[in-house]
């Protein structure tokens, strides 16, 4: 059963309340959780998906958006293969904070990290951020872009699958930051990909 071929670490960041936890729950558990409290510190979920008939295990670290947990959440950026930066399309301030988040990512994450911008809550009527604006921002900052609704399960599966596919491609071309090497520092340099034998070393 533990026969996944790839293990990828995905970290979600963004202001509190934009729907990070809901996106993760929707993806991992297939549900839209009713009124759970704000995330404290970090939350952890796992999901194994199949890409090109290969099992890919996604370790998903869902971080608290609040400032006060910043020190612990940042410590999770470092080993991320992919970072999902989420904002709420019906809430301008969450979009305005994106540059701050990018700065954090710049500072704490590997430079090779796959970055995805997600505008969540597209089911809502009161949109404040037009799709093009999000697209534009993502393009300017060299990120993937996707709009989702955790509530309506729209694009959620696709989001994570895209990430898994992309990371796998990177892995195959051995262009993935490697975190389970014998040195703990992340150089972000190209190195051997994590395959099953590698991941089983408790990456």
């Amino acid at each position: 059963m533990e026969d996944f071929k790839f293990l990828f670490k995905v970290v979600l960041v963004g202001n509190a309340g934009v729907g990070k936890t809901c996106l993760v729950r929707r993806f991992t558990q297939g549900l839209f959780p009713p009124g759970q409290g704000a995330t404290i510190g970090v939350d952890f979920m796992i999901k194994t998906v199949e890409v090109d008939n290969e099992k890919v295990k996604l370790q998903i670290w869902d971080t608290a958006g609040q400032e006060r947990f910043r020190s612990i959440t940042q410590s999770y950026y470092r080993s991320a293969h992919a970072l999902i930066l989420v904002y709420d399309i019906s809430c301008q301030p969450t979009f305005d904070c994106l540059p701050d988040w990018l700065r954090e990512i710049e500072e704490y994450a590997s430079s090779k990290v796959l970055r995805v911008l997600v505008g969540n809550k597209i089911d809502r009527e009161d949109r404040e951020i037009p799709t093009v604006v999000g697209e534009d921002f993502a393009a300017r900052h060299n990120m993937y872009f996707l709009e989702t609704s955790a509530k309506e399960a729209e694009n959620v599966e696709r989001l994570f699958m895209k990430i898994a596919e992309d990371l796998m491609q990177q892995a195959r071309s051995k262009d993935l930051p490697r975190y389970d090497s014998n040195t703990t520092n992340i150089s972000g340099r190209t190195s051997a990909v994590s395959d099953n034998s590698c991941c089983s070393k408790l990456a």
Partner: protein
Amino acid sequence: MFSGCCGCCSALRPRYKRLVDNIFPVIPQDGLVKSNMEKLTFYSLSSPEKLDRIGEYLFQKAARDIYRKRYGFVIIAMEAMDQLLVACHAQTLNLFVESFLKMVQKLLESTEPQLQILATQSFVRFANIEEDTPSYHRRYDFFVSKFSAMCHSNEHGEVRDKIRVAGIRGLQAVVRKTVSDDLVENIWEPVHMDKIVPSLLFNMQESGFHMKETGNIEEAPEDQVDPPMLAETCMRELVGRASFGHIRAVLRPVLRHFDLHKLWVPNQFAIHVFRIIMFSIQAQYSYTVVESLMAHLDENSKSSPTIRTSIADVLSKIIAIAAGESVGPSVLEIINSLLSHLRDSVRNGLSQTDEKQYQEALINALGEFANHLPDYQKIEIMMFIMSKIPFPLVDNNTPADNLLQSILLKSLLKVGTKYQTIHLNTTFPVSFLEPLLRMSLAPDPDMRLLVQKILHTLIDRHNNLEKLSKPTVNVHELELTMEKSSRPDLIFINKHGPVIYDALYTSLQMDTNGVENIEAIYTTLALLCVELASNETIIDLLQLVLGIQNLALTNNDLSNAQKFNLHAVVASLLTLIPIVLNIKPLADYAAKIGKARKHEAPHLLPDLLVHYPANSESANKLPHLLVDQMAICEFVKAGGLDPTRLAQTSPYGAGGPGAVAGNHRHSWVESGARGSIMELPGGQDVDSVSSSPGVQRIIIKEKPPRTSEWHCEVNRHQSWDALFKFPVPRTSSDRSITSRILRRTNNKLPEEELTFESMKKVLTEPPEARKEAEAERREQLSHTFRTATFSELLHRTQPKHDILQNKLNEIFKSLSTTEANRSPIDREKKSNIPVYEQNFPEL
């Protein structure tokens, strides 16, 4: 992969698989089949080479059961692995451990709290076993990440705390497992510490003790360990295991956590945590904690004063713990850092009350620190602080300078209060006493008051300070504690008395003195009297008393009220001195004067007032109420002491302000004298003089400045006047200036006294003419001191060594050419030139 439920083919399956399958009951509620587990264990022990396959097989089964949510079987599989882990020998475990940890990870990945908790327990068990060969390839990244996440569990109900406890236990286990061997996994790497430390702190801060105001913290059941307690234990362990290179890795996230969680204000939790750190840290590193906190103050220099005050307060709460362990340079570093924070604070915000509180907090920290240092270090610290105080000069100080002066003096006072004087000569090395006295003449009366307070706390050894805080003629009521002066005391006062008295006397001339200032100076004198008075030194004191009276009678700058104040001080001291020394006739005389004044002129007695009734008559018009020099001589004599010196001219002659300063200048070279009776004060003075025989001769043969013997005993170069000729330490200056002062003071050869002009004058001019010139120069100098800017003064007083050298040569050359006309004494001088030069190479 393997169905495992096909009974018919089970016989064909490998033995180890059958053994494993058999430990599982039909229904999970029945639990592990014990007898079969024994068989499996026995098999593993006898065929250790199969252990890794057993492990892998158990893992596969558990993974499948997790997927199918058959948690009962998962628990049984984990239990079996636990048992095998404990039962099997270390050398065979290596590969099995891999399956074991995969299993633990698998359980931790599940969303099921029960499995997560179970996995943690197994991990803890694993961490406790000793492995034969450490696995260098094994990484604990996931465990640290996951356990940290568990520490922040937000589940509903009591599961939350259970998961948090499991998370903390897991972190504790990772630390234990890895801490001893950095090669296995360097747990001190930021990537780990930045997770572990905030996770522990987050749980510690959830504890109710420091947020009592919420009041509604539910009582945890007795048997249950609560997360805060456990987190605290874990924190202690972590800090305790940190070696020097790792301390900062722990402290950095601690400080960051307090910043982000806004835990500095209020700071109870911060204090709590830092206490824990201080008590757990290996003692020799505790200084690092103090250092980090101070560095953090630096980083917060732009933060609100409230935050800085809080941090400084935390510092003051823990600094004492570090004091015991701090040695040498680190002590001064800490002090220096505190002082620079004070200075920065003064520079940045002058008058805000918040900023003041911050300064208070820093001063408190300083005091707390000093309080726990041995006394000899306190002296060092006081000298160090002294060296940082900018010297006050009229018109030149910015408000910031003034504030800094008073703040540093306050710090000094704080340290001083923690210091217990035993021998005054230890408390007051010249390099400390001199700048302190210099500071006692600062233009700002508040500053002068602080200096007196510092003197009080350092001089008072018998807790008489309170009793002598105000002048009084009812000395008997005070119940003073007294002890006969020791020999070191006498040496001290013999050596430094004149300088101290000089400074106090000069300080009384200040027309900006308030009642508090005058009272404080009285207190200093009274304390000196109580601590140090002896039959040998009483004359000096009485001379000073008469001098003060004279000052009150003749000074033109002082207000009437100030003059009355001085008379009251005179009366009080006159009463105190004979009581301390038990000179009955003099005591009676003092009482008589007191009584007479009480009838006729109560304004010449304490209490000291700011305003006196308009009809208060000037003391000059009441000669019969004044202290009479002749009468004192008589009563001193009646008391069995020799009043000769007292009968002679007082050093505090009727010259008014400025007269004292400079009195002794150059006079040592006056010719034709009774210099032979002069004794050189002991200690370093003798050293320095004896190292230069040429100079020594000059001194010994010279004529004393006045006919008074008082002067003969004084080392005149230590007079007040001499003091302020030296460059003074300024804020930013290093200690080299101070040491230069010290050196020069010791040498007793300040350049001014050795300029060619002065020497020549001394040698050629008639004494009268020179006296006049001297008076003029004194006047000038006094003027300069009061008006020149600091840098000017500093410039003026810069040593001019090479010039000096030339001038000296000139002098001595001229001496030799006129040798024939000179007395044998002069010839002797000349013959000593080479020695002199030899002994003063630095000139």
